[in-house]
């Protein structure tokens, strides 16, 4: 639903309408309601999102949201705190993790009050299940900490948050795409940098608009589309992170990308960890249950990064299998053998997994082996924020706040996940730090005596003109025609050839090439030469991207125009990921460098801060309660 008219000025604009964006909006509205008696504010708040909110990828989260409610057995938030720090391979900032673990129960109960249809215990409490890495007594036995709603917790949370936003009359501009983040002064000279506004494309009208905003929150989600095989939706193109880079800001720890071990064959669709918890076994082409060789004692239920690396090691050693749907294709999968699970049990406990395998692999997991491969799942790094959601720059050894700019959720990095995220902590991060960000903005709005009246915003107007010129160039098709025959390529191959110069130059083909390049360069493991090869390949893609033009001159709902800008964003981000990976000469959590296989706390117990000019600086990790030690599962 769209407002009749989107204004030129708002008190706050939230970009993105997944769990983080909607939580921010609710946090803001609720905090203002509480303050209403004091000052009679009627805030002008807009949520801009490139998707209708219910289409957000939050809705695909399956397993649960972690909180030490202790509904089914004794639990303690200190244990959650420890598990998260350990899971992060000691790269998380412990002050932030402490907030995460301590406030998790309150957030989950608030979500329940918002309407989330949690699964229940017999006595009517929120049901909880075990999840990888969540333990009792600081690394003891597994504990039931993940509050769940069958296997669709993300869907439930997304819908409940959206519903509560409707109740409060939150204004949405849906299928609007943010093209530019405007800071003033635009370059990173001195402290005092201030967010001024956004340039936004109304995709329905095909028109650009400048929106001035005192407070801007980026909640745009992850960037799984950097890779060919990903569990992420087609829309996760790292827009918010790229906007930050393009505005001269830094990203933190972007080299840490979690690969979930069991993506389904060529699709990358997630098969929940529960498939292995219930008895599924990974096997190589010889039928050997290889995980026992890599993680004795833990086997198939070792940590996600460990299992993903083991699968890739088998494939690299020539013991992979081909996806049966593409029998002549590369042997880049291994088998997930679920045939040992009782059929009845499988239907009851793994309905979503079973349905996905049936529908997308056309296999019957009770009798067939299922092809799986690691799938890009989550970006641990992102836009650096404080625990109140303020975006900052790391400069001369201190955090310099960018006034009026905030971020939350997967696109941000408060650093609660460090080098590897625990299952159940992503929804928690998005909802908790989203809410806190909304509250922080409400506090600032309540204390502002006068509206920040920037009657003249030359930088914004300038950015709008620049983007308009860019758009005009994209849409300058000879005659308003659909593509002429010459621009269309006959291609007999089912997949476009990744290396062939003959592949058509359009953003969709280019995104495919980028995905393969990134997969070879840094997926699951990397070394200096693979990264440098990736960087050289990026140069070619950058050159090709500059040639991209829309093949239709009609601006209205022209998806290709948006896709061209998404590709630009992915390319910007890919370069940052590769350079950050190159600079970190150690292996930690999800980053495995085969040329530096050990963790190196002496040099790299620090966050990578990288900007678009590829300047890297290092921010020390906040160690509060737990000095680093080994990470064994």
């Amino acid at each position, binding site marked *: *639903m769209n407002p009749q008219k989107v204004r030129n000025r708002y008190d706050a604009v939230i970009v993105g309408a997944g769990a983080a964006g909607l939580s921010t909006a609710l946090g803001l509205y609720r905090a203002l309601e*509480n303050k*209403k008696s004091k000052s009679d504010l009627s805030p002008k708040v807009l949520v801009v999102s490139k998707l209708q909110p219910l289409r957000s990828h939050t809705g695909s989260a399956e397993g649960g949201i972690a909180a030490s409610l202790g509904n089914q057995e004794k639990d303690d938030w200190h244990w959650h705190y420890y598990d998260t720090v350990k899971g992060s391979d000691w790269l998380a900032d412990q002050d932030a993790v402490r907030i995460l673990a301590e406030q998790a129960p309150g957030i989950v109960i608030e979500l329940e009050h918002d309407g989330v*249809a949690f699964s*229940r215990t017999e006595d009517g409490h929120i049901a909880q299940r075990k999840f990888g890495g969540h333990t009792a007594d600081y690394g003891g036995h597994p504990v039931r900490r993940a509050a769940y709603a069958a296997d669709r917790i993300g869907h439930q949370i997304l819908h409940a948050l959206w519903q*509560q936003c409707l*109740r409060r009359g939150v204004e949405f501009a849906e299928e609007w795409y943010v093209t530019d983040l405007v800071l003033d002064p635009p370059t990173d000279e001195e402290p005092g940098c201030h967010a001024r506004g956004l340039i936004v494309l109304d995709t329905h009208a095909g028109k650009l608009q400048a929106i001035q905003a005192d407070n801007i929150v980026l909640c745009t989600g992850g960037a799984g589309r950097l890779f060919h095989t990903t569990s992420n939706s087609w829309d996760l193109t790292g827009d918010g992170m790229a906007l930050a880079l393009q505005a001269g800001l830094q990203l933190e720890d972007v080299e840490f990308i979690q690969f979930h071990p069991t993506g389904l064959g060529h699709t990358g669709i997630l098969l929940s960890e529960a498939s292995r918890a219930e008895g599924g076994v990974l096997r190589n082409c010889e039928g050997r249950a290889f995980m026992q060789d890599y993680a004795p004692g833990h086997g198939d239920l070792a940590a996600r990064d460990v299992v993903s690396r083991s699968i890739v090691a088998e494939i690299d050693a020539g013991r992979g299998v081909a996806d049966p749907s593409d029998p002549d294709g590369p042997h880049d999968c291994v088998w997930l053998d679920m045939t040992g699970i009782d059929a009845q049990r499988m239907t009851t406990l793994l309905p979503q997994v079973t349905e996905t395998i049936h529908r997308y692999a056309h296999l019957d997991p009770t009798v067939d082996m299922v092809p799986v491969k690691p799938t890009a799942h989550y970006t641990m790094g992102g836009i650096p924020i404080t625990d109140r959601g303020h975006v900052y720059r790391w400069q001369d050894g201190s955090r310099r706040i960018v006034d009026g700019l905030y971020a939350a959720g997967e696109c941000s990095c408060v650093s609660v996940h460090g080098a590897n995220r625990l299952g159940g902590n992503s929804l928690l991060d998005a909802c908790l730090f989203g809410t806190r960000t909304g509250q922080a903005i409400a506090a600032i709005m309540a204390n502002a005596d006068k509206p920040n009246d920037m009657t003249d915003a030359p930088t914004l107007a300038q950015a709008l003109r620049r983007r308009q010129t860019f758009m005009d160039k994209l849409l300058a098709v000879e005659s308003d025609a*659909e593509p002429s025959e010459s621009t269309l390529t006959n*291609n007999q191959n089912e997949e476009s050839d990744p290396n062939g110069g003959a592949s*058509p130059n359009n953003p969709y083909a280019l995104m495919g090439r980028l995905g393969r390049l990134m997969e070879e360069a840094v997926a699951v493991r990397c070394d200096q030469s693979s990264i440098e090869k990736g960087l050289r390949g990026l140069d070619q893609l950058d050159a090709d991207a500059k040639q991209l033009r829309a093949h239709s001159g009609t601006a209205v709902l022209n998806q290709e125009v948006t896709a061209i800008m998404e590709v630009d964003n992915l390319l910007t981000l890919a370069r940052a990921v590769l350079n950050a990976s190159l600079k970190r000469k150690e292996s930690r959590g999800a980053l495995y460098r085969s040329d530096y296989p050990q963790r190196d706390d002496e040099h790299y117990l620090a966050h990578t801060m990288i900007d678009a000019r590829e300047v890297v600086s290092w921010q020390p990790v906040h160690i509060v309660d737990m000095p680093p030690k080994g990470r064994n599962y």
Partner: protein
Amino acid sequence: MTSQSTGSDGSKASASDCDPRPVTFRIARFTPRPQSERPARTSPFAKSNPFAAAGTRRARGRRWTQEYTIRIAPQRTVLDALLQIKREVDPTLNFRYSCGHGMCGSDAVLINGRPDLLCTATIADCLSASETMPNAYASFGVANGSPQVQQPPAFRRTGSATTATATSSSALHSDSGIGSRATGPKATNPSEASDHTETTNHTGTTHFTETSDPDKSSVIEISPLPGFTPLRDLIVDTDTMFEQIRRFKPYLLHDDSSAESRQNHHESDQPETQDSVQNPLTKAISQAAKAKVVDAEPASEYRQTPEELARYELLSTCIACGLCQGACPIYAGGEAFAGPAAMIAAARFINDSRDSHRQERLEAIDQVDGIQACQSIRACTRPCPRGIDVGEEMWKLVEAVKEQSDSYAHRSA
């Protein structure tokens, strides 16, 4: 005999389903004309044609049917195919998609006359279903022909299509067999800005029985979801659906009795104004707002037993994709009806034991364009990707409304 069955000799998804083969996609396309660029001169009949005035929701622009023949394995999804077309053949084709595995609800369209999600429909399903399904749907009248025509009601329409569609698509049918090829739209005869629709006898188009030769391509027809205004190609306007969902206050309203002693804080100026006067829910909301303690740290969850959860759990899995709306002859036919998706959203809260306003909610849906508009045709059930028996749930709502008004009449008597 379809080519689907050729060579697969009865066993389960076999090698033949993995082999790419030519499939033709016949896609209803539409490019709107921007307002500002609309020339002053239009059809000489435009002013006098009553249909032109009536079709206010129908955007002007160019409509045509385009065929693409690509090689793809039958076990792939239709979304895979359209993405391949975008990548390799025609990047101007527009359609919504996001998660790609049936959870986001963004890619509802009409495939071979049947409402379906692009990402859950496989090529094999569509080719085998094209034998039988169009007839089944044709009896409801939703399917065949041009869904861009919103009015008159679908069930009064028999296999209509635009002139351009009928002639150009058959004339340009590509049987190249190998390689992919787009038929250029310039060769078609786009019905520029025509707000009138000529009906031609085109009922046979959804049957493709000629494909016994596996090398010959089979045809899959895709058009926008009925009941929704097309905006460009397969993208439709979903705002109307969400407005109707919103109308019945789809959010949990829990009166916390323990909080009554607390001071009221006004939440009353929230924008609930539009249909406030006659809507009993509005009063309920302000009551709930008074009761709700916003600033208190939530102490514990509202209790709900697994049995209470089971009463609405499936309803809560609705992804608002709109397939049920597109399948409903009442809704898609243009009658005044809030639509099955809005009713399901209402039912989700009516059946949630945590919600304190069941009665007001039942009153709210008991309107001529609410549950009263449902004629129990139950076409809404089949396409639901979440397995909700929409038709049955609608019937339960009818009964609950009746029960409530009966007991109310009984009490006041």
